[in-house]
């Protein structure tokens, strides 16, 4: 009994330490964002400033291009997430259910795209997008993000489809549905957790992407917020307070998004489909 209690305490303590370790940078982000400029350096290592203010937030919202960056990021990330999820659902279903010629090579090629360091591809992609007029545009960014996220998202969706018994759509087809209708009415509703996970994954990937956003976009009009964050770094100083305030605000959509989809993430809808 004693050993059991000690074990439980050790277990909880380990989890607690991990959570503190993982969330501490976020806490610091929040702390710095509400620390007035005059206290930023004088109270550098205090856990909480003696006086808090929202001056950085006000400044960022009123006097910087941040709202613009923010809108751009929402447009790019949401479009990327939706396009990728639709493509990946269809492709993942095909990989999961059908045998077709060239399937092996398609999978190999898709894996191959995931093996290159992205830095290598920046120059060729810039060269390709530039005559198409897609540099310095949100559309160009969406195209690139979709291309880079589809392979992984496809594998992710495939694994979710693999988890749904084939019997279900066969039963639907015998009941009188076409394969596409069976896909829409039977399989897709059961894949909602997978779709939510894919949406979330792609959204956050696009939301925090910096490399391509930095290389393909030059003007403030089409900048996304990671690029925007860098604008707080000037030649002579870094506006830590404003940068952190922007960072805190940038967390909001990601948090909202996960709040929306977490219901599906934890839901095991397939229970009861077949003997369990």
């Amino acid at each position, binding site marked *: 009994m004693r050993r059991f209690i000690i074990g439980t305490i050790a277990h909880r303590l380990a989890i607690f330490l991990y959570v503190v370790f993982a969330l501490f940078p976020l806490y610091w982000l929040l702390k710095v964002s509400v620390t007035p400029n005059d206290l930023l350096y004088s109270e550098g290592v205090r856990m909480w400033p003696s006086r808090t203010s929202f001056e950085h937030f006000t400044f960022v919202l009123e006097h910087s291009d941040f709202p613009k960056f923010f809108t751009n990021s929402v447009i790019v990330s949401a479009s990327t997430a939706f396009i990728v999820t639709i493509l990946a659902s269809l492709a993942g279903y095909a990989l999961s259910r059908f045998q077709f010629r060239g399937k092996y090579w398609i999978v190999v090629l898709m894996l191959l795209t995931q093996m290159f360091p992205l830095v290598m591809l920046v120059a060729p992609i810039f060269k390709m997008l530039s005559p198409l007029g897609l540099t310095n545009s949100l559309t160009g960014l969406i195209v690139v993000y979709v291309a880079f996220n589809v392979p992984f998202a496809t594998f992710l969706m495939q694994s979710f489809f693999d988890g749904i*018994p084939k*019997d*279900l759509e*066969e*039963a*639907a*087809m*015998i*009941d*009188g*549905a*076409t394969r596409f*209708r069976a896909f829409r009415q*039977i399989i897709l*509703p*059961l894949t909602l957790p997978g779709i939510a996970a894919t949406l979330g994954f792609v959204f956050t990937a696009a939301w925090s992407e910096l490399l391509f956003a930095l290389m393909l976009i030059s003007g403030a009009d089409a900048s996304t917020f990671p690029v925007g964050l860098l604008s707080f770094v000037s030649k002579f100083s870094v506006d830590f307070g404003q940068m952190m305030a922007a960072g805190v605000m940038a967390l909001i959509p990601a948090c909202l998004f996960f709040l929306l989809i977490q219901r599906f993430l934890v839901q095991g*809808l*397939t*229970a*009861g*489909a*077949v*003997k*369990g």
Partner: protein
Amino acid sequence: MASIDVTAIRKSYGSIAVLHGVDLTIRDGEFVVLVGPSGCGKSTLLRMIAGLEEITAGEIQIGGVRVNELQPKDRDIAMVFQSYALYPHMTVAGNMSYSLRLRRAGKELIVGKVSAAAATLGLDTLLERRPRALSGGQRQRVAMGRAIVRAPKAFLFDEPLSNLDARLREQMRGEIKRLHQSLGATSIYVTHDQIEAMTLADRIVAMNAGLVQQVGAPLDLYDRPANLFVAGFIGSPAMNMLGGTYRAADTTFVAHDNSAIPLGRAYACEDGAPATLGIRPEHVAVGGGGIVSAPVDLVEPTGFGTILHLRAFGTDLKAFTLERKTAQVGETTNVAVPPERLHLFDVDGVRIA
């Protein structure tokens, strides 16, 4: 309702052939059971009739119409899966009415058909539940209900009872038979359980290694198995098989230990030809007068009767009797085999007339 004709059906996956040419005619309203060990191709054949597997060669007709090129949805058949394959996000009523909704049946018609089917299957109180809130037996019933709400040309069953425990399986077996008696629907039922096959079928199709071994009424297969496979597969405990030779002079079978078993009549077999003699355990007479005396090796009381394992004819001979034998291991007992109950097979395993 409709008849189903299967002509020279073959199936291969790449270079691996699974079905080597199957011919089968299922009459309108008939209950046919495909039985065989795992991998014999029975499920594949059923899925080809359903349209879930492509047909490599041959032709399938349902109600006299070639269906090779038809999608499952256009074949007008219903199927009960081993896994039940209930739609987890739909209620019991939703599951049962899905096919009718796809056909855009009227709301009143749907409600009427679903409640009629639910009443037949005792699901009335469960219509608003989801599959996950049902027991195994209830799920099985919903799967059946989904099949019977519309009147399809044929019912296909793919090992529908395999996931149930023994007692429930027995009960559902009875219900399926009763259902067939009241609906009179053409049914094809796949199972590896020979008891299900025997009890349900109008006709049994015994399959092995992608070939039909024998087609016939259950008792025909039991009394006159066409070959060693059918003889060994149908019946529990399984038929005793003795190796030996046929002696024409006195129409006896000489087992490997040189004991002679009188066959009672001449068989169409050459003198001295190697053969296999089959004796069902329930036909081995124990105690009383016998042709050999055999030591008891093992006693298995089933409550219903007793299975005795005897050392006789140079092999392990099983005897089944309804009596409660109190034989002890090591005792000897007299063994007799009635000549009219014997089955003789040639070297290729084919029954000798």
